[in-house]
């Protein structure tokens, strides 16, 4: 939201930016504090809950940033040039999303001093989806930098810029491939946790579920982002394009629901939808949010606000679903309990603040991003 | 190799001034070494592993160990496979002993107090002194006391072992007080009177039992090395284990049947069982006819003790009592398991009668000195001090009246033990006479009934010398501290006792003392000399000399034993005794020795002293964790973490009725004192009982880990006057450690 206010009038620039900046800086301080002390001193993680809020945050933000690759595909693979404006916004947002994920991950792991080990080929464990996630995210991060490079430095007539620009379709292709892999891999991380993850969410096809949900989340979030940005720039949003995105999203949601219920049916665990107490409730909230989003996407037509509601439903679903899988529905042995400390929460808040801040700054100072919006408007 | 030029030139430049300073300082500081000395050629540190043979001294089971050393340090212990007691294993306490050896809290040098004030929480103001000063100070004070008040004014508080006895008797005092009547005198007296003519036998052939019946015995829960293994083996062989205990002990948890009997009423249950066995002619006629006396009197005596009579008293169904009795008598071999602080130990006013019933039960089924039953220790005959050295007879003063009144208990007296329950009252009332000085060896205040009372008593003494390993509570009251070796640092021979089905001796090789410590033996002899009692310390008297004499008697040498794996003695099958140590050479159901001394010869029902009522509705139960030995093990950094503090264990349902939840702080209050503990709720205890682990409540700040953890069960146990002990009519002078009712309420 603050992106809106910030870009509206020069005068409001310092205040909102400063607030976000301050929050981000506090987060930085907390981060340093965490690394200087210990997990025990800063988090409520325990033997029963070795994973907590930060991991959940990562599992949430990765699909949240999926717009970068879904739109990259639209733009470069499906060659829908008219989407390049939106695609660039999604790319920036995605880039920032992955940056925060990597930073939070560094705070989360307890041997951050040996993080580089994951890049040493002799240590690669191809059996481990944690490895696949780490590796493909790292590579994809590099890809995004390459994709951003020609946009950020578009106005510079360095030969490098031109070379990279020519390679972009290829790079984008690789990016899409990598995303496909890790969007499903973070789901596959749970394949081996059948003894911990509640059967309402554990499934042998969980990688597929994660991937499909990443698709529609990415599309929805990009559309949402577009609406916000266009409003921030006081221009009517390019509804036909957004509708295009949400329509595709609707179909993917449908596919997802079929997979989800089909899987429960085949596993003979439909009963759990009613017999799992609080978790059953969570499950139904998820379903309702998703169905609502789907219906809205199919029916909303050109009404911007209705579409917005649908996008928010999707976003809410994503948050709930990923936090449930990484936290609420991950049963701890020996009845351990967990609730994050204010440090853990503070870090997450700061991460979002930083993300929004840099997105706004990007919009403000990278001419081609603005141009993308303006031109799309002309369309 | 040559040094770089820069430094060279700089050196030259600095030479003069530097030399001056150095010369000046060396002049005053000296150039000599005080801790290190050069050796001709440096003997390379033995990096490779070596071993030492020894005998564990944590508990009296005395398992033979093999210490594994690296670079002179014990890395770990293993049990000696050649030892019939250890069988290649130690228990958790034994393994943990190494940490006592290297405990930084240990007493390292002789010390004396500079603060005349004594008491709980008072800093003695220790200063390190030389052994000479320590020994002189002690000897001179003892001599002074002896000359002015007579030898009885000195008391030795120590276990009754060879050298301890010698010191007490040589110094002429009758007051050699041990902890025995808080531990096992009831068993000792009964076995002397009925079977052995001396004390209790410790050897039991559980391994071959087919039926093991226990009353409050928790040998498995106390991780008694040999017994735990033997009973396990028996169970694996299909033996049946039945445990009467108000608390679900670890032993009870392994039993086929746990029978939560009312505390202090085991006697009734046993009388009923004896009744059934005799009444239904289930006893071993052959054994009874050939090896026992007084059966007919017994038969008549128990005529009315029917299960129906006993059931309401001990709150066990008559049918259960009868069935258990029948199983016990018809499953052979069968044995009643007992050791020390069980129902037959000095826990209740009637415990000595309970102990008598134990022996009767065994005799009725013919399992005394028979496979699968209690075995009379097969110990080698080793020389006493007088066999080795010539020295004058001890003064008659040693036969005089004692401060603990032990001499008024003729059946117990010859066993040469002592009474902790009467000591404090004796000192405070100065009857029969005042005590002025005390010498404590390895006996801690906390192991007494009502320790606060004893502290009061000890504060009236002029002088206390303590020989110990850790700065325990008694050390905090000492005037002189004489740091003792741990058993690792001692040497000698040790006859197998807790499992001696054939004579066997274990070698003790000493580890060089870690600190500036000396054994009680050398210290006590040195003190005798300096007291002017040198005639009792003939040339060459000491541990080494005795060991040498023992080796000669055994016809072997230390090296020979070492070569045989640290153990001497050929394994041999048990040859059952046909004669026993009593006057009649038989097992006496009706103990003449008791009768001669004015005690009933046969056990009649006698209720425990303490009866629970509305005011004091709970019976106090005391138990021990597998890794704890008395008050000695709570300073261990590892095992102490298993159970950092003791708790008030209550029946979960009963506690909820009282609004007590897990972890709530509660007071346990007896007539003597009250202690504060956190509650532990369990299903495994009678609703009318509260159980407390022993060994906690250390107030010696010298124990960095144990200090201030939990509370001491002993505070709840009243002390007695000799008159009260006599009134109880108990020949064993039982301290009645658990004959206590308490109230429990939330803090």
């Amino acid at each position, binding site marked *: 939201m603050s992106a809106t206010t910030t870009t509206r009038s020069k005068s409001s620039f310092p205040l909102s930016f400063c607030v976000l900046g301050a929050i981000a800086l506090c987060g930085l301080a907390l981060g340093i504090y965490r690394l200087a002390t210990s997990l025990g001193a800063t988090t409520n993680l*325990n033997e029963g809950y070795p994973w907590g809020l930060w991991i959940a945050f990562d599992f949430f933000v990765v699909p949240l940033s999926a717009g970068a690759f879904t739109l990259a595909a639209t733009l470069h693979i499906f*060659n829908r040039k008219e989407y390049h404006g939106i695609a660039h916004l999604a790319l920036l947002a995605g880039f920032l999303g992955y940056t925060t994920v990597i930073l939070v991950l560094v705070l989360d792991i307890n041997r951050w001093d040996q993080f580089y080990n994951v890049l040493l080929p002799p240590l690669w464990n191809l059996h481990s989806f944690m490895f696949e996630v780490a590796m493909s995210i790292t590579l994809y991060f590099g890809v995004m930098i390459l994709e951003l490079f020609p946009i950020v430095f578009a106005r510079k007539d360095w030969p490098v810029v031109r070379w990279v620009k020519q390679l972009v379709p290829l790079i984008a292709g690789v990016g899409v491939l990598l995303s496909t892999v890790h969007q499903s891999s973070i789901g596959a991380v749970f394949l081996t946790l059948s003894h911990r993850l509640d059967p309402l969410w554990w499934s042998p096809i969980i990688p597929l579920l994660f991937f499909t949900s990443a698709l529609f989340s990415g599309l929805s979030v990009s559309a949402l982002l577009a609406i916000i940005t266009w409003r921030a720039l006081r221009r009517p949003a390019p509804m036909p394009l957004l509708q295009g995105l949400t329509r595709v999203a609707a179909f993917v949601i449908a596919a997802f629901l079929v997979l989800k219920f089909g899987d429960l049916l085949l596993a003979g665990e439909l009963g759990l939808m009613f017999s799992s107490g609080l978790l059953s409730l969570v499950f139904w909230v998820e379903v309702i949010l998703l169905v609502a989003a789907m219906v809205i996407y199919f029916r909303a037509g050109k009404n911007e606000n209705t579409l917005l509601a649908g996008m928010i439903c999707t976003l809410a679903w994503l948050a709930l679903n990923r936090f449930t899988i990484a936290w609420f529905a991950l049963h701890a042995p020996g009845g351990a309990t967990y609730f994050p400390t204010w440090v853990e929460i503070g870090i997450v808040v700061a991460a979002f603040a930083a993300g929004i801040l840099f997105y706004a700054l990007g919009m403000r100072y990278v001419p081609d991003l603005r141009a993308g919006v303006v031109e799309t408007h002309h369309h | 190799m040559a040094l770089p030029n820069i430094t060279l030139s700089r050196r030259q430049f600095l030479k003069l001034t530097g030399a001056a300073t150095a010369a000046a300082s060396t002049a005053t500081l000296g150039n000599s070494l005080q801790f290190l000395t050069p050796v001709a050629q440096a003997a390379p540190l033995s990096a490779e592993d070596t071993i030492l043979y020894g005998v564990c001294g944590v508990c009296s089971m005395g398992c033979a160990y093999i210490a594994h050393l690296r670079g002179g340090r014990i890395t770990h212990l293993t049990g000696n496979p050649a030892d019939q007691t250890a069988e290649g294993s130690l228990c958790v306490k034994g393994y943990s002993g190494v940490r006592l050896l290297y405990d930084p809290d240990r007493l390292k040098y002789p010390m004396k107090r500079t603060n005349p004030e004594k008491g709980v929480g008072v800093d003695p103001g220790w200063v390190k002194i030389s052994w000479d000063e320590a020994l002189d100070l002690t000897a001179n004070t003892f001599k002074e006391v002896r000359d002015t008040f007579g030898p009885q004014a000195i008391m030795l508080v120590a276990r009754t072992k060879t050298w301890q006895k010698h010191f007490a008797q040589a110094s002429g005092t009758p007051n050699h007080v041990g902890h025995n009547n808080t531990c096992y005198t009831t068993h000792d007296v009964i076995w002397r009177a009925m079977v052995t003519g001396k004390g209790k036998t410790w050897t039991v052939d559980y391994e071959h039992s087919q039926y093991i019946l226990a009353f409050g015995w928790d040998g*498995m829960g106390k991780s008694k090395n040999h017994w735990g293994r033997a009973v396990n083996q028996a169970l694996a062989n299909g033996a049946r284990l039945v445990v009467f205990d108000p608390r679900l002990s670890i032993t009870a948890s392994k039993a086929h049947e746990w029978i939560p009997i009312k505390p202090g009423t085991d006697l009734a249950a046993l009388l009923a069982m004896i009744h059934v066995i005799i009444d239904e002619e289930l006893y071993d006629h052959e054994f009874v006819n050939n090896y026992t006396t007084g059966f007919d009197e017994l038969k008549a005596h128990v005529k009315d003790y029917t299960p129906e009579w006993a059931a309401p008293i001990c709150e066990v169904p008559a049918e259960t009592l009868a069935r258990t009795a029948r199983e016990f008598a018809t499953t052979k071999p069968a044995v009643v398991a007992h050791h020390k602080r069980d129902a037959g130990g000095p826990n209740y006013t009637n415990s000595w009668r309970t102990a008598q019933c134990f022996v009767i039960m065994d005799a009725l089924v013919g399992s005394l000195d028979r496979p699968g039953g209690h075995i009379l220790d097969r110990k080698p005959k080793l020389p006493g001090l007088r066999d080795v050295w010539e020295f004058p007879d001890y003064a008659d003063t040693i036969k005089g009246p004692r401060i603990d009144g032990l001499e008024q208990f003729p059946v117990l007296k010859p066993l040469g033990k002592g009474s902790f329950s009467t000591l404090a009252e004796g000192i405070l009332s100065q009857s029969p006479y005042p005590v002025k000085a005390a010498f404590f060896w390895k006996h801690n205040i906390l192991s007494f009934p009502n320790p606060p009372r004893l502290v009061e008593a000890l504060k009236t003494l002029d002088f206390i010398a303590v020989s110990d390993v850790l700065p325990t509570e008694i050390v905090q009251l000492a005037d002189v501290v004489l740091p003792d070796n741990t058993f690792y640092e001692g040497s000698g021979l040790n006859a197998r006792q807790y499992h001696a089905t054939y004579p066997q001796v274990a070698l003790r090789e000493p580890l060089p003392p870690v600190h500036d410590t000396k054994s009680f033996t050398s210290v006590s002899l040195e003190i005798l000399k300096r007291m002017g009692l040198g005639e009792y310390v003939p040339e060459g008297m000491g541990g080494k000399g005795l060991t040498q004499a023992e080796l000669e008697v055994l016809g072997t040498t230390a090296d020979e034993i070492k070569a045989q794996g640290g153990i001497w003695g050929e394994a041999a099958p048990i040859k059952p005794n046909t004669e026993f140590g009593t006057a009649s050479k038989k097992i006496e159901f009706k103990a003449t020795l008791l009768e001669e001394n004015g005690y009933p010869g046969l056990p009649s029902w006698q209720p425990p002293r303490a009866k629970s009522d509305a005011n004091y509705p709970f019976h106090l139960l005391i138990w021990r964790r597998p890794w704890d030995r008395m008050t000695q093990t709570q300073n261990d950094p590892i095992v102490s973490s298993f159970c950092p503090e003791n708790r008030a264990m209550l029946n979960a349902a009963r506690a909820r009725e009282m609004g007590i939840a897990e972890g709530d702080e509660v007071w346990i209050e007896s007539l003597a004192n009250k202690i504060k503990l956190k509650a532990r709720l369990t299903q495994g205890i009678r609703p009318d009982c509260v159980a407390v682990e022993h060994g906690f409540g250390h107030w010696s700040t010298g124990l960095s880990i144990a200090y201030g953890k939990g509370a001491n069960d002993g505070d709840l146990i009243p002390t007695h006057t000799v008159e009260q002990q006599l009134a109880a009519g108990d020949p064993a002078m039982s301290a009645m450690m658990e004959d206590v009712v308490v109230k429990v309420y939330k803090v």
Partner: protein
Amino acid sequence: MSRAVLVDTPFCLACNACSAECKFENQPPEGLFYTRIDQIELGEYPAVKAEYIKRQCMHCEHPACVSACPVKALHKLPDGPVVYEAERCIGCRYCMVACPFNIPKIDFNARLPVITKCDFCADRQAVGESPVCVRTCPFGALEMGERDELIVEAQARISQSPDRYINHIYGQEEAGGTSWLYLSSVPFTELGLPELGSEPVSELSEKVAIYGTPTALVTVGAALAGVYWVTKRRMEMMTKPVTQDQKESE
């Protein structure tokens, strides 16, 4: 041939000699143990039982922790032990979550914690010594040997005293088999051991990783290439207007 230990729980007297001596000789980090005895109370007074069970790393035949670790900090030695190399660990704690027995632990208060778990005294075994706990147990609850021989032994014990043991050897099948096997007189769930199928916990995950990922890569890659080619092609077909379009937008 892989070595294993048979834990005969009816023999365990909860003395904790194993955990104390292991702590003493192996020195795990402050406050952590490689092995502990769990005490479990079953039933209600007076019909109550107490059970004791030694807990430590089960040294699975197909360890979930090894499969989970992204950097091969954990691996299974051919003769049984599952061992850990701290200098590889990145501290993602996936092994802690993946272990069905909840064995790997860390000292959360350490600045750079290491995974703490029983390593079956691998170093001692390497020089022919037995693990500390096995050497220590005074009461015959732990027996070490070749895994298949121990299974035979365990079956023998069960058939010898059917009233002493339930007819099940925990770890023979569970999670694809473990190097630590248990006998018990009560159902293992009552002793806090999880009910597990006979397939390794990580089997599905590994299959997907080895076959799924490459397949996905290839198919998606091909699809993308196809689409790209098609769309590109279409554009070239309708040349002129498109160039117009592009001129405009440039």
